């Protein structure tokens, strides 16, 4: 049984135009996987389909033993999926504490405060001023809050859409350090990323999506060979290979 398995997934906003054409893969418990690919390949769309935000046109999605394709986003959270969108991933008009309280609401009442405290400890930048509006946070701090919120309910699978997008190199480092800690703690991690180097350093397995289909699914070691990446991303062809 895998933590997350996807079979023949076809997804898109318009029934006549599938952005994700047919994708199958599975992720084991505790694995850290990154999803790479050129712009427009459908990485974000695929992730959002798994998270219940984009219509699934065909295929299935399983979390552990449970069939989850077609469930609305809030049901998926209860099934153990944590999703951190790329942008607009916190409520700027609510306070930091309130953002966390919403997530905590899903837990039994006795656990709520301790989990909130745990997240505030894990992310000291947030712990200092929980009553402040989330909108006052900087870019990097917002990502922290978004991750904290998703982690609060101890999801089995944590899916993140480009967590380092728009951040300075130093912040990217901090984000990935945090992700490493999360992965080391045993959380199954699925990461869509444009920052290939950081993603390959963090994860053990890479899926490369091109034009809505998987062009590669293997260990990240394979991808350290830049030639392969060049082919997949930039369409380079080896000399003499068919077009």
């Amino acid at each position: 049984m895998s933590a997350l398995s996807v079979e023949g997934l076809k997804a898109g906003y318009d029934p006549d135009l599938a952005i994700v054409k047919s994708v199958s893969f599975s992720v084991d418990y505790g694995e850290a996987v990154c999803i790479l690919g050129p712009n427009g390949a459908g990485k974000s769309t695929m992730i959002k389909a798994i998270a219940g935000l984009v219509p699934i046109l065909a295929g299935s999605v399983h979390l552990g033993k449970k069939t989850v394709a077609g469930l609305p986003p809030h049901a998926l959270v209860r099934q153990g999926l944590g999703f951190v969108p790329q942008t607009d991933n916190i409520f700027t008009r609510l306070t930091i504490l309130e953002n966390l309280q919403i997530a905590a609401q899903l837990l039994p009442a006795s656990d709520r405060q301790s989990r909130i405290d745990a997240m505030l400890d894990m992310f000291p930048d947030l712990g200092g001023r929980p009553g402040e509006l989330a909108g006052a946070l900087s870019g990097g701090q917002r990502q922290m809050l978004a991750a904290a919120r998703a982690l609060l309910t101890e999801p089995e699978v944590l899916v993140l859409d480009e967590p380092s997008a728009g951040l300075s190199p130093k912040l990217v480092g901090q984000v990935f350090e945090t992700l490493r800690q999360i992965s080391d703690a045993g959380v199954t991690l699925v990461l869509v990323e444009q920052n290939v180097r950081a993603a390959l350093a963090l994860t053990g397995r890479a899926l490369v999506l091109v034009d809505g289909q998987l062009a590669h699914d293997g260990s990240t070691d394979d991808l350290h060979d830049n030639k392969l990446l060049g082919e997949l991303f930039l369409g380079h062809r080896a000399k003499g290979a068919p077009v």
Partner: protein
Amino acid sequence: MNPQAFIDGLIAGSTIGLGAIGLTLAYSILRFANFTHGDFLAWGAYLTLTVSGLLGGLAAGLGAPVHPFSFGWGLPLALLGGAALTILLALGLDRILFGRLRARGADVIIIVMASFGASMALRSLLEFIFTAKPVYFTNALQIAKPLGLGMRATPDQLLVIGMTAVLVLGLHLLVTRTATGRAMRAVSENPALAGVYGIDVAQIVRITWVIGAGLACIAGVMAGLLVQIRPYMGFDLLLPLFAAAILGGIGSIPGAMLGGLIIGLAEAFTVQIIGAEWRAAVSFIILVLVLMLRPQGLFGRKEA
């Protein structure tokens, strides 16, 4: 200037404010200007009247006025029934009309258009069922008691003002201190993200209709108690309701109440100084001024 206008304004403002709160909640969470909201007020009043009549048929004692008010225990009981029915009406309308349009991804303006059509149908249905003749909750007359400073108010009127204050306070606490309130504010900021956070957005939508329709019913009963009940009562309040909601800032409960009070007072003083025929122009002028000078309203956000 006669200070009585101040009391008259507070009273009218309470009704407008309560109605505007429901409207502003729907607007911020459902994201459309709901033209049927006025008709929830009217239907609330008529449904309560009907339940009251039924109760009176069952137990005659319920109609007897309870001192110092003009109505008996039957009315608050009937109000519960009327509110429940009005809520069912709103939920039903969402199920068969607005919800379907939302599910289809229809543009907001189409939903507004549908609400306009539904509002005319609802209003005319009232007229068909009950005729256009005004009706009343009670025939008991009330003596206005002096309050000092040349103002007078009947016990009914004071009750209305008091109840409104309690309701607004309660709602404010609900929205700012409870999990449901947090969820409502979250959905109003970003419904898709709310789902990702684990909030059942469809449930919040239902709760919004419940609160909105419930408040509308209470506002309608208040207006019906203090003035009269007629099919167009809700529609005639629609422009003041919109003006109050926009003046207060869409999504703000204190704003909607304050907006309602301002409009109520402005109307009362206008009636006194210029004349009753021009009352409806007050809301319009205030609306235009808000849109020209500060479109986000008193407590709203700049992006309006």
